[in-house]
């Protein structure tokens, strides 16, 4: 198992940003890009932006979205319309301004010693993994490999397949619950099947983002196979700066703030029961 490294959290800003595009990538799913100052702190995969949607008091709070890509001067998020806030956001047009706070939280630490990077995403959990895969490709040595495992309910809900597929270094496997595409079953089952076939898991590193149940299984597998694993957790985010203590989850050593100590955590530090 590799050692956990210090997860990087640069300074954040609270600014008005200009929407560059907000495209529907498939029914109910959008990719939004906005401009940030070139001086903007470099974002790390797994970090999020906290966006005020709409003007009125409903919805009241900002909404958090993982950064799915960062290049100097530009940030991208990918989101699903699930409620009122994301619905309002989906109406944002090129040229509109959004109030954004970020980059917030702690992102994934890329294990430079690892040779095999395993990225597991469930549903919208695929969003930050695109950014992460890009970063891993840049940082790590040529002889290391990246395998991505994505899970969706059905074929219709698959997102970001092309983004991963276009890079031949990345091994991509997809599971659908109804078997309409790829592996039939949960992505965690697909992942377990994969691990079972592996003789040695030394210098492996796991990065996961998705529904709690999926993360739970992935964490258990990482313990069983003794692989260092990082998981991105969700809770309602309120202040996003660590002040309100509203976003806590249970850790082995007490409550931890998703917006501050997370959203990416060492799976070992989380109380999974």
């Amino acid at each position, binding site marked *: 198992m590799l050692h956990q490294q210090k997860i990087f959290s640069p*300074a*954040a*800003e*609270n600014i008005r940003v200009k929407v560059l595009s907000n495209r529907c990538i498939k029914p109910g799913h959008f990719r939004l890009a906005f401009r940030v100052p070139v001086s903007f702190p470099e974002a790390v995969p797994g970090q999020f932006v906290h966006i*005020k949607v709409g003007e009125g*008091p*409903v*919805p*009241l*709070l*900002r909404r958090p979205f993982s950064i799915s890509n960062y290049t100097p001067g530009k940030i991208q998020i990918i989101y699903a319309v699930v409620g009122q806030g994301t619905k309002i956001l989906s109406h944002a047009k090129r040229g509109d301004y959004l*109030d954004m*706070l970020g980059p917030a939280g702690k992102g994934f630490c890329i294990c430079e010693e690892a040779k095999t990077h395993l990225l597991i995403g469930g549903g919208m959990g695929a969003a930050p993994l695109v950014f992460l895969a890009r970063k891993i490709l840049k940082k790590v040595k040529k002889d290391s490999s990246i395998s991505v495992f994505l899970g969706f309910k059905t074929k219709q809900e698959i997102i970001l397949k092309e983004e991963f597929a276009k890079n031949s270094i990345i091994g991509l496997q997809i599971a659908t619950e109804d078997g309409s595409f790829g592996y039939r079953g949960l992505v965690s089952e697909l992942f377990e099947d994969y691990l079972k076939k592996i003789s040695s898991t030394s210098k492996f590193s796991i990065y996961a983002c998705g529904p709690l149940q999926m993360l739970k299984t992935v964490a258990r597998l990482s313990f069983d196979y003794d692989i260092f694993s990082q998981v991105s957790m969700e*809770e*309602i985010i*309120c*202040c*996003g*700066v*660590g*002040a*309100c*203590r*509203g*976003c*806590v*989850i*249970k850790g082995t050593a*007490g*409550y931890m703030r998703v917006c501050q100590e997370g959203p990416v955590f060492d799976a070992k530090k989380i109380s999974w029961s």
Partner: protein
Amino acid sequence: MDKFNVELAATIGRVKLKNPVLVAAGTFGYGEEYAKYVDLNKLGGLIAKTITLKPRKGNPPPRLTETPAGLLNSIGLENSGIDSFIEKNLPFLHNLKTALIVSIAGENEEDYLRLADRLGKEKCIHALEVNVSCPNVNSGSKMIGEEPELVFSLTRRLKEVSGLPFFIKLSAQIGRMVELSQAAREAGAEAVSLINSIPAMAIDVDKMCPKLGNVVGGLSGPAIRAIAVKIVWEVHSKVDIPIIGMGGIMSLEDALEFVLAGASAVAVGTANFIDPQVSLKIIDELEHYLYEKKIRSFSELVGKLKTGG
């Protein structure tokens, strides 16, 4: 019109503020969390998150849920206790050039007295806000903030242990705000802070379970503003004690409702989460407002509601 300087200063008993806009307890941490987003020195004052004698881990998650125009929270006074506060947070707060008010809570009178005693020795604290109305602590027994006699007794004894000004923080959960404020006044409190979040609850009908881990939480935000304004106005009309008004303030207009109703200062709570700079914007706009209305001093506005009769 002649150009003139607008006086923003506000007075809460012995406490002088450079302007009347504070940030509310529990919504601004210990200042440091927001330091990179806000010039803290421009605030009228900062009310630090409630601290207790011993560390408290707070309530089980989920601790937050949204309601229409409201926020329901059950943080449960998570904090690291007074020792940690003095050691880790106070040094930062010490350097601020604005009024520092520290919120305290205890399980019984003795707790409050010990907290006041310890904090009374710190030079940089301008006042203590005595939280006797947190809706998120189920001690089983009655809250001090529910009984005028308990409020009176606590305030009296606090004044014996420390010369600091005390603001007694009450909540709308009790229909006896006038009696309670009267008790605070008679016992010598400097002010009352009105209001804390209101006990409330939301249910996930799919899972048939409460949305909060603690079942019950406190409702804050614009949803409760009209209730809070009414309480401030009622207490101001009937009790001779300065009031720090709060509950759903999102803009200057909202803040002025409290001031006209009788608040000598206001505190911004939930709105900080949505816009960390909102308090500074309100202060700015207040200055413009006074200038345009040709009002020389903020204090002239306090309680200036015209009610006809």
